[in-house]
Every structure is written in structure tokens, then in C-alpha cells.
């Protein structure tokens, strides 16, 4: 479904992503783990066209994404939940959600149905539907950002550090929700520092350090790996 081949990304003279290749199949949940500054967010920005890669290919459903504007990539069926959430703070929860569908060809005629789906996954959003997004707590804003992404009926959902800044009990709840979303057959690409929780919902994972892939295995093998246990799970 998504194929990245030999991707190199630079900010000015500093190279952030080195010769990066990855393959994600339809219906698969793939994780990308690594410390701060490893290049996880840069990779996502390159996929959705916010950063222009230096070289390499990004192919989504046999169509090259390199050079396309962000809104076109999103309309092609990729939804992204950014680390900074990027909500519309002076609009209500419901308005934020509706905007998630409004400009996507496949979603704009299914707004009510999508709202219903998001509200069953995140009942708190239904309770707060008339509240301004800027007044929600961090955890609720994260759920709203995920909900807004789901409103687009994406084939491919990208989540950038969904657990960042959430209290531990909320993190567990959030990953429970992500499991439900995964059951609908959506492909998921997830970056995380919280490897322990991340491993629970993914099928396969990559470990990225200093812009290079250092490991690539199934979630079961990753959980067993000595390197992962030492560096990320603190065992």
C-alpha cells in the first residue's frame, strides 16, 4: 500500500533521514520506534508533503506522492494525526470533526455516519461536542485529533506519537481505542517512544536511530529482542 524506497531528507545541510526504505501492506499496522530526534516526525512530514525529500520514492497505491501538495496527499486517502494535534481551537468539537470529512471526496457524503463511528469510539467527544476544541484537556484534544483523522475515511492512518504528554492511564485507554480502529481493517502507521504500549497493537515494527533503520521485525520478535528490552523497555 505504502512503499518508501531509498528516501533521503535534509534540512538545509543537515541530513535527517538516510537511505530509508519501508513497506506497508494493506490492513497492516506498522510501528516506527526510536528516541527523540531520530527522524520519526520528519519521515511523516515527508510522506504528507510538508517536507520535500532530497531523493528517493514514496509510492501510495501505485501513485508517487513526492512533489504533491499536502491536501492532495490527504485526499488520496492518507489521514495524519500530528504530534501537535493541529486542531481548530476556536471551533467546537463537532465543527472540528465535520471539517475532517468536508474536503475529502470519499468522506464528504458520509459525514453523519462517520460522526456516529467516531462518537462510538470516543464517547467523551459526543459529550463535549458543543465545547470549543481549545478548551479541551490534552488527552481529549488527542482523541479529537484522532477522531478528525477518522472522519476522512482514510485507507491509511498515520499517528505521530499519540501517547505524548498523556498520563499513563490515558495511554492504555488510547491504545485500547487504536486496537478497535485497527479491527476495521485500516492500515496504521504509528511512531512511538512508548514502545511497550506501541508493540501491543502493531504487527511489525521498525527501529530508527539517527535517521537510519537499525532493526526491522515482527512485534513478537521485537518484544523478545535484547536490544529493545535494554534500550526501550528498561528491562
Amino acid at each position, binding site marked *: 500500500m505504502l512503499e518508501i524506497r531509498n528516501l533521503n531528507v535534509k534540512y538545509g545541510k543537515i541530513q535527517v533521514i538516510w537511505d530509508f526504505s519501508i513497506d506497508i501492506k494493506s490492513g497492516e499496522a506498522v510501528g516506527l520506534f526510536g528516541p527523540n530526534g531520530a527522524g520519526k516526525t520528519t519521515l511523516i512530514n515527508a510522506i504528507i508533503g510538508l517536507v520535500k525529500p532530497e531523493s528517493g520514492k514514496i509510492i501510495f497505491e501505485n501513485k508517487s506522492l513526492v512533489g504533491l501538495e499536502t491536501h492532495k496527499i490527504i485526499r488520496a486517502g492518507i489521514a495524519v494525526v500530528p504530534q501537535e494535534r493541529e486542531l481548530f481551537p476556536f471551533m467546537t468539537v463537532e465543527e472540528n470533526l465535520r471539517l475532517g470529512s*468536508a474536503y475529502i471526496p470519499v468522506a464528504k457524503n458520509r459525514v453523519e455516519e462517520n460522526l456516529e463511528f467516531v462518537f462510538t469510539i470516543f464517547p467523551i467527544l459526543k459529550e463535549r461536542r458543543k465545547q470549543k476544541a481549545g478548551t479541551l484537556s490534552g488527552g481529549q484534544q488527542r482523541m479529537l485529533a484522532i477522531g478528525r483523522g477518522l472522519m476522512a475515511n482514510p485507507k491509511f492512518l498515520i499517528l505521530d506519537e499519540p501517547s505524548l504528554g498523556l498520563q499513563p492511564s490515558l495511554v492504555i485507554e488510547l491504545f485500547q481505542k487504536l486496537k478497535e480502529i485497527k479491527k476495521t481493517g485500516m492500515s496504521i502507521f504509528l511512531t512511538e517512544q512508548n514502545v511497550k504500549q506501541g508493540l501491543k497493537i502493531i504487527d511489525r515494527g521498525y527501529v530508527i536511530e539517527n535517521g537510519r533503520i537499525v532493526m526491522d521485525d515482527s512485534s513478537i520478535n521485537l518484544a523478545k529482542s535484547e536490544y529493545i528490552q535494554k534500550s526501550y523497555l528498561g528491562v
Partner: protein
Amino acid sequence: MEKTNKSLKKTLIAFIIFLIVVGIWKPLALVYGIQRGGLYSLIGLPLALILGIVGILNLAHGDFLTLGLYIGYIFFNSWSIDPLISMAPLFFILFGLGMVIYSILIRRVLKAGHLNQLLLTFGISMIIIELIKIIWTTRPRSVYTSYASSSVTLGNMSIGMYEFIYPAMAIAVLVILQLFLKKTRLGQAASAVGQNPKGAEIVGINTNVVYLVVFSIAFGIIGVAASVMLPRTPVFPLSGNPYTLKSFALVAMAGLGNLNGILIGGITLGVAEAIVQSIPGYEGWSDVVFFGILIAVILLNAYRRPES
């Protein structure tokens, strides 16, 4: 949400009390102030729209207004078309001009940082002023219409009637803009872009199209303001120039993205100016009061909301 509603109500109540007090104390100043404030608001709205959604401070704002005045003057002088009728073609001419200016200049500096944006629009301002001097010379021109000097006498006051068109148009433009932003697909996209451009791209909005349309609509409104002003305004190369700073002052006072505040702020400043001008011997102080109130409001806002 309740909090913003409450503070809006408070502002509105204070505003109405202010108007009533002025109305009892100096009724003439109230009338003049509402008329002039209406004009400030009408001219301030397009600047607020561009600054709030496109994020560009257009220092050539007032000079495009001057350009509009000259185009309206040509319509009147060459084809004897009344300014209030040439409002429609003027809207579309400036709309088109906005599209051109955006596409060939503004689009290139969107990510260039504030200083470059200011330099660009300042340069545009100087080019327009000098072009006007070359084409039309500095000789002031004016348009005479019979209705522009009509007045009505109330008790011992004689009030110009035409100027009531300023607040009326300001309200009309504001209502239409709000309907556009709330009810249309493109308008909702524009609100979204104004609040978070990156978020807007992420939900599939083509921000470049939104910027182009908003910029052009704002220019169209400048055209409307120019034709409404024309019957009562002498036309010379700097006619519109002072309105850049006044419009910016209004936006600073109302806060970004607060279009209703432009109307309230404009009328408040207009009335305050009119009060000062009604005191014999102190007419020249009106600008001091205008910017004095502006500074006071900004300080008050900063004090009230230390966290933002």
C-alpha cells in the same frame, strides 16, 4: 465558550453605555462619530480579513483604496456613472487586481517571514503612490453628486445624511462576510485556515486557493469602500494612505480574527475622535486620542490575559 460569551456581552454593554452617555452629553459628536467610525470599520474589515486569514499585513491597504477612488472617479468623469452604481464594477475590478497581486507577489512571500512581507507591501504602497502621481498628477479631484450634501435639521442640529451610508455599509459587509465564513464551504475552509493553516492542509483544504479567494474578496471590499467614500472625499495620491494605519490600529484593538470587534472598535474610536474635535481649540488632538485609546485597549487586553 461561556467565558468568551460573557466578555463579549460585557464589551457590548460597555459600548452601548458609552454611546448613550455621549449621546446625552454631545449628541452631535455621537452622530459624527458613528458616521466616521462606520467608515473606519468598513475600510478596516478587508485589512482584518487579510491579516487574520492570509497572515499578511498589507501596508499598501490605503493606497489600493486611493486607486479605487481614482477608478471610481474615472467612471464618473468619463462615463458619468454615479459612484454608488460603479460600486459593482469597482468590486470586480479590485477583486481581479487582488487576484493578480496575490498570484504574482504575495504568494511568494507567504513563508518568507514578517520583515520581507512588510517590505514587499511597503514597496507596493510606494509604487502605487508614485504611479498615481505620474498618471493623474497631484491635483486633487472630486466628484459632485446632488445627494452627497443632503442634510436634515433636528432641533438646532444640522446633520449630513449621506454619511449614514458608512455604518450601514459596514454592517452590511460584516453580515455578508460572517455568513460567507459560517455557511459556505469555502468560507468554513477560510475560517479553518485562519485558525490553523497546517491543520487545514491536514484535513484536505487547499490553502493556496483559500488565500487567493480571501485576498481577492478583501480587495473587492476595498473597491466598495472607495465607491461609498467617493462622493464625500477629495481624490489625490494620498487620500487613502492614512487609513492603513487606522485600519491596523482597529485590528490590533479588536484582536485577530474578531471581525465584529472591528465594527465596535471603529465606532468607539470614531466617537472619541468626534468628541475631541467638538471641543473648540483642540481639534488637532484627535489623532492623539485615536492612538491613545488604541494603546490603552491593548494594554488592558495584555493585562487581562497575561497567559496569552
